[in-house]
Each structure stands twice: as C-alpha cells, then as structure tokens.
C-alpha cells in the first residue's frame, strides 16, 4: 500500500489514482461546516487565516470529547458535500487535500483537477477505529465552536482511499 507523509508535495498527490488505498502520516487539520464558513469569509475579506492552506490537508471531522488518558475521542469523517460550496475557494488558496465521506459537487471535482489537489475518503462510521491512528491532537483555532473548532492532528497510518484524483477522476463514477 502507498504511504504518504506530510508535508505533502504536489508530486506526491499527482501520482495518486482514484480508488487507490493510501496510509497517511503527519499533520492534518479538522474543519467542518462552521469552520469552513469562517475560512471562506476570511478569504473573501482578505483577512489572515489561522493557518496557511498551501499544501495542507483538511479533514471533515468534528471529534467526540477526549476521554481521560486518550489522545482523542471518536473521530470519523462527516458528509463532505456540505463543504462543497466553500471548497473551490480553499483549493484556490492552495489546499492540497481533503478527507471526508461521500460524493462531491461537479464544481469541487473540477476545482480539484484544476488545482491538482486530491479528495480522500476514509472509513465512514468507523470513528473509534480511526481514533487509534491519531497520535496527537489539540484545538488549533476557533475554539468557541466546540467540536466544530479546527483541531490539529498528528496521524499515523491513517487509512484513506483516493476519491477524486488530480486528473479529476471520481471514484463514484466507476460504481
């Protein structure tokens, strides 16, 4: 199985093909609905973002609370399509990869191809299993959003399947 380590490089992702399984290690940031709305609005208003999106990875996830003695609580992916209207602008700002579950809009598929980015799926509804692959976690920005805040995660061998590749090929087209 292919292994990827962050920071991702353009050439790392350009070799990926839709349907391929990948294990990812390194830093990723969680962001879901409200965090996306804030990032999107900040870009439009030309405000500073909490982190530079260039070559970064966003995971659509709002984790459960962290039980005592654990790194993180259950942390599976949420439905990606709710982020669709914000995604093309984030990709334009350099976002290189997204992790979530389910289909994306035509606009996102097009923008992913255009900006040579990649959309990964991870095991949907397997939040306890995925929590085991997180080695470090902490709130990074928008703490007032609670579970919808941006968390910075260090992951090890996080299981992914390429959903949309840099050529704009979409795994769900084949099904």
């Amino acid at each position: 199985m292919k292994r990827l380590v962050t920071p991702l490089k353009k050439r790392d992702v350009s070799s990926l093909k839709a349907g391929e399984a990948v294990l990812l290690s390194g830093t990723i940031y969680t962001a879901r609905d409200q965090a996306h709305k804030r990032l999107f609005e900040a870009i439009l208003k030309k405000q500073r973002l909490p982190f530079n999106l260039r070559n970064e990875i966003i995971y659509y996830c709002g984790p459960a609370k962290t039980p005592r003695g654990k790194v993180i609580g259950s942390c599976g992916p949420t439905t990606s399509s709710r982020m669709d209207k914000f995604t093309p602008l984030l990709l334009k700002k350099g976002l290189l990869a997204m992790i979530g579950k389910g289909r994306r809009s035509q606009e996102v598929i097009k923008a992913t191809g255009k900006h040579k980015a990649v959309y990964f799926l991870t095991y949907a509804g397997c939040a306890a299993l995925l929590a085991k692959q997180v080695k470090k976690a902490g709130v990074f920005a928008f703490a007032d959003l609670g579970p919808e805040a941006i968390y910075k995660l260090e992951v090890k061998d996080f299981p992914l399947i390429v959903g949309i590749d840099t050529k704009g090929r979409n795994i769900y087209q084949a099904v």
Partner: protein
Amino acid sequence: MRRLEAKTIRQAVEDLCIKANTILRKDVLKALKLSLKKESSAGARNILEAIIQNASIAKKEKLAICQDTGMPIVFLEVGQQVNIRGDVNQAVTKGIEDGYKKGYFRPSVIRDPLSRGRPQYSPVLIHADIVRGDKMKITVLPKGFGCENKSRLCMFKPTAGFLEIKRFILETVKDAGPDACPPYVVGVGIGGSAEYASLLAKKALLKDITCGKTKNSGRNAKLEDELLKEINSLGIGPMGLGGKTTALGVKILTYPTHIAGLPVAVNISCHALRSAGTIL
C-alpha cells in the same frame, strides 16, 4: 398507582445513552456479519470488516461508535398506572446530559436552528406514549444527522399503489447514495398524518432488523423482504464503493390514515444504528 421516582428515570437514561453509543446493537452486528458472508468483492469486504472491528474497539475501549453521537431522541411508553414523582422531562434531559458527559460524547445540539451557536447536549427530543399497565419503557436513540438529512416524506394520492411507494423508497436510498454511511437501515412509516408517518419511520428503526420473512409473516414483513432485495440490487454497497450490501435491513410500520391521503415517510439510518432500551 405505582410510584416511580424521577431520579430512577434519570439514572436509567444516563446508563442507556452510554450503552447505545458504545455497544452496537446485537441485531445490527449480526446483520453486518451476515452481509460479510455474502459479499465477494475485496473492497466491500474490507469496509465491512472495518465496521465490525470499529464496533469491537468501541465496546472494549468504551468509545463512541461514531463521533456523531446524534441528536438524542428518547421514546417513553408510560403505563397509565405509573405515578411519576418529580419532573420527568427534566429527569430525561439530565440523564442525557450526564450520560453524554460521562461517555465523553460530542455535544451536537444547537439551541437555535437559525443563529446556531455552540453545540450542547440538550434539549432532547422526547416522544411519549401513554400505554396500559404500571411500567415505563425508555428507549434512547442517538440519531446521527448525516443520515437524518437523507430522510424524506411524501404525501401520496390515496389511489397510489405499493409500486409507487416502492419507487419513492428506492429513490430515497439512491439519493442518499454513498454519502450517509451505507449500508443503511431503512425505516418506513406508512399511514397516519404527515408528522405521524415520520414518527413511525423513526420508530421502525427500533425494531429487530434480523427478523426476516417467515412462513407466517404478515404483509409488512413480505414488503420489507421485497424492498431489502431491491435496495441491495442497487449496487451502492458499503461506503458507496459498490457491493451487494446497500442496506442491512428494512422495517415498515403502518397506521390507519385518511380517505384522502397516503403519507409515506422514510427515515434513513447509517450502519451505526444505535439504540438501547429498558423497562422500569
């Protein structure tokens, strides 16, 4: 009259939300294992194995099966001979809040649907029925919203046949597609009124999904069986990546309705269908 203390209800609800969120329902686990036997493609098998492994990690480590521990929905069947001492709504709400806190579950409820705000554990949705007897049945159903968002209601003409209804149910599943964590459990409510059909569809999810058609089954069990076969021939499969398992089960509840109507509601559940109940 039989006395029941509100604090007994609070404790029961607390225990039930921890059980529901960390221990996958036996029937759901059984259906997953049966599906694994039927799947031949490596991809689909791999995902089903991950789902089963997830359930075992969650149980062992007392972790939430899914990070979306849902909007807590509580069903109460209150015997008319029960005399509750104290505030039952408060007891249920407190039970949910304490259970969710204790389980380190995610607060996912926002106080105002328009202004949104920081998520909390409550308020809780409570559906109460008055029944005969001197017992109280409590069921906690933490419902994730990835799948709740895919649920639908259709008010059919009274002359519509089951074929039209079936088409609507299949369309609803197809629309959910890969997005809401298939394999699904499909709850169907037929009859009543608009809100009652929706409630029936939700209550259908509480039924044992492994009780299939037998020689003596009634019409609904036959329709469930027929629907399950057709849904599983859609080819959506686990995670929407293809396969024979698009649904783990279909459950139908029906109720009398008006001469002018035929309400049909479909409530989609992800594979992590969680609920737990007890009788006090």
